[in-house]
């Protein structure tokens, strides 16, 4: 602890004990994993052909699904936060469903939508487009599970910003699209950025829906989490080394979004 707060915090001391246990539950497994890392072989392990293929695929698909989350999630968050229409609460509940749904279930649902015998898959197949068990399927699976993170984060930012600035901008003669581009989006940019970062992190870690809907083809659908799961059976050292890579990426992502928030401190008013 760097500094002991001078103001009264009112937290009973036993709360600190339980909070400490909670913290340990998260930190201890990471420490245990660190202890298991085969450091002399670390670089060769994570730069093996299959590892690099999985890492590259993971980064590419996660970037693609983050873009898709922004494209679809911004309008969703806008209509949920600002719109007034029948079924709004129901729509919100459904958009948030993937947060609590087991990813395997999501994968099965996607399979019955885009699979060869699926709702949309059949006509798409007739048109010569096959989605299931392709890289596109990986991106769709990741978007499915990551979208709620962006929507929740952005909807919260939109709600707390209110629409006072938008009303003023409109009376100044700005069309709704201009208001969205020049006022709304800049104002909620921190919320959008942290939502995008969370979506990226969720996409990167996606396993269940991807395995069910996209399978595990090396270089095509085998992302890093799938590679780790496979390696664990045959080469535990490689699995641990790759896990550490994912932990490092996750820490970087969280650090990035936290750093973002720190920079938005108010500036001193000058007379």
């Amino acid at each position, binding site marked *: 602890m760097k500094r002991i707060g001078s103001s009264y915090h009112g937290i009973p001391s036993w709360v600190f004990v339980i909070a400490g246990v909670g913290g340990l539950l998260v930190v201890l497994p990471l420490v245990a994993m660190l202890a298991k890392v085969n450091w002399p072989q670390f670089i060769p392990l994570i730069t093996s052909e299959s590892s690099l293929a999985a890492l590259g695929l993971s980064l590419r698909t996660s970037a693609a699904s983050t873009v898709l989350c922004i494209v679809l999630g911004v309008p969703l968050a806008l209509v949920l936060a600002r719109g007034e229409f029948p079924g709004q609460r129901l729509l919100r509940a459904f958009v948030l469903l993937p947060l609590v749904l087991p990813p395997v279930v999501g994968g099965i649902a996607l399979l019955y939508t885009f699979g060869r015998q699926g709702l949309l898959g059949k006509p798409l197949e007739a048109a010569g487009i096959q989605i299931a068990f392709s890289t596109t399927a990986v991106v769709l699976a990741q978007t499915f599970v990551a979208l709620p993170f962006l929507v929740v984060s952005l909807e919260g930012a939109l709600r707390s910003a209110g629409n006072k600035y938008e009303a*003023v901008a409109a009376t100044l003669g700005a069309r*709704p699209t201009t208001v969205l581009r020049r006022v709304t989006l800049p104002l909620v940019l921190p919320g959008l950025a942290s939502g995008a970062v969370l979506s990226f992190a969720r996409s990167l870690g996606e396993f269940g829906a991807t395995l069910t809907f996209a399978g595990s083809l090396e270089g095509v659908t085998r992302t890093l989490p799938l590679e780790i799961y496979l390696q664990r059976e045959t080469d535990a050292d490689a699995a641990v080394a790759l896990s550490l890579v994912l932990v490092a990426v996750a820490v970087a992502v969280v650090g990035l979004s936290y750093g973002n928030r720190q920079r938005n401190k108010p500036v001193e008013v000058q007379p």
Partner: protein
Amino acid sequence: MSFEFQASLAARNFHMSLNLSDGETVAILGPNGAGKSTLLGVIAGLLRPDSGKATMGGATNGNSNRTLFNLDGGTRLWSPPHLRGTALLAQDALLFPHLNALDNVAFGPRSAGASKRAARETAQHWLTEVEALPLAGRKPAQLSGGQAQRVAVARALAAEPELLLLDEPMAALDIHAAPLLRRVLKRVLQDRKAIIVTHDVLDAYMLADRVIVVESGSIAEEGPTRRVLERPRSHFAAGLAGLNLVTGTLTSEGITTPDGRVFAGRHDPEWSPLPGQAGVAAFPPSSVSVFPGEVHGSPRNSFPVVITDLEPHGDQIRVRARSGASEQALSADITPAASADLGLVPGMDVRFVVKSALVSVYPS
């Protein structure tokens, strides 16, 4: 008429109609919740009434009337806020926090399709107008309340609104910042169509040609600023002007209140009274003397009251009291010494005596 407006919104008990001629500034006065902000919201297009109609006359030749909305007779014409030409300036400056002062002011011209450069030149012009050009490069967070509000005035004017709506623009400012903004507003509102909602009588005097007093969703009285504040007919306007107001029926020498008390006073010389007509008697608290004890008989301009409050008012004590069955609020200003001599306390029964030479009587 250049701007004509009439609207009803049942959910807020709002029923108002008003007209503005070219270059006219109207002050809307009224207690909190009277419907002042509702009025501005409906005009700006941010709030939809149940029924009503509003048109804006052409800026110069008057032959191109624009309909802002028309919800009467089955039509559902509702023009969106950005097509109305009614810039709204609120109590908070609401400058866009991510843009500096210059780009905030350039926002209106940019939205109207001006190039970045032309918009910035317009913005510099308006920043100069509100004495804020040196602040052009600052972000809103680096501006004081008064500075931000002046930049907001420039931003509203740069959008070239046909009608400027000001919703208590001075209310959030400290007393040191308000005079400069008031001076700026006085200059820029000259020859400009504007509606200013305020509860400061000074704003009405300095900025408005005409005053509209609203009470519980409708117009209580209106007229030239000077007349409304010198000859108030509503209790709210009388309160703003610092006058006591008693309503009753006109007689040849004054008025008679509903509970039968006679108020003698001076009639307006420009007007000959018609006995039996409804009228008011207005008098300043300084014309009222306070006496202890019961009233015997019913002498003129003397009536029993119950003291409700005592408060300092300049170097005087303001005695607030209620009178008669109507519980009418009246006040008297007396010296602290007199107050101490009489031992005045809230709840005490005393007598107010008003000098008839200082009572103005006119029809309501």
